[in-house]
């Protein structure tokens, strides 16, 4: 964990993509850890009965991976001040050993006062945007 400093960053700089895996086991663990046991995240029969193609990931799991991207980039001395996303498309997680992949990338959108930096984030899965309007504001050392 190295991280960046405010002086290091320049508006427009791209942060390279990182891939995060999500399997049925990830969702079951996330159900338990988060307390969100909505059946569409673990029961294929009910997910399909309510019109979904299959079990889908918790939006908050996808958001958590985008958060991981931000904190890994920013480093241990950074503080996240704001973090918001829109969930634009469900992330289907098939019942195999591969699951789905979330590809997160970012760009420095703005340098603000008080050592704050705004990041625009992109999250895709199989080419489809799963998050839009994803943005974080962090305070850098």
């Amino acid at each position, binding site marked *: 964990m190295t991280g960046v400093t405010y002086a290091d960053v320049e508006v427009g700089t791209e942060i390279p993509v990182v891939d995060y895996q999500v399997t049925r086991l990830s969702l079951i663990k996330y159900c338990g850890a988060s307390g969100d046991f909505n059946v569409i995240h673990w029961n294929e029969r009910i997910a399909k009965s309510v019109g979904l193609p299959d079990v889908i990931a918790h*939006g*908050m799991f996808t958001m958590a991976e985008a958060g991981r991207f931000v904190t890994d980039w920013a480093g*241990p001395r950074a503080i996240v001040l704001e973090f918001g996303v829109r969930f634009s498309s469900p992330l289907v997680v098939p019942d195999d050993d591969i699951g789905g992949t979330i590809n997160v990338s970012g760009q420095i959108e703005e340098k603000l006062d008080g050592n704050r930096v705004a990041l625009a984030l992109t999250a895709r899965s199989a080419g489809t945007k799963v998050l839009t309007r994803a943005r974080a504001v962090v305070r850098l050392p």
Partner: protein
Amino acid sequence: MAINPDFIGKTFPPSAPYEISRVKLAEFADAIGDPNPLYRDQAVAVGAGFPDVIAPPTFPIVISMASSGQAMADPDLNLNYAMVVHGEQRFEYERPLHAGDVVTAQVTISDIREIGRNSVMTTSTTISTVAGEHVCTAHATLVERGGAA
């Protein structure tokens, strides 16, 4: 059957105090697959200037859901949870939550609207320590698919 618009503007009572433990933070970090030592190694967290291990940025959802669960389950709200997908989520932080924090969450339903065939509800949840320090506000948009059909 749409979500009941009578709930617009309703603020629910604060939740019972929730004590954030190191074990819970490590469990949550494991569940999201994040090996960051700030979430599980006290020495690293203290070395980085925090009082104890801190929470990942999306952890406040656990506290806000525990509190909003009561609101969502109100039969008069008429929310069909199996049809609910998360539309948007946003957090504003005063500081990271850390192990040892004892917090309560208070949910307000800010809006309920019909958009096309869907029912859309937005909520704001303020998370504060029992000593009254505001730590985080979580804004959520939940979409009940077909809720307005």
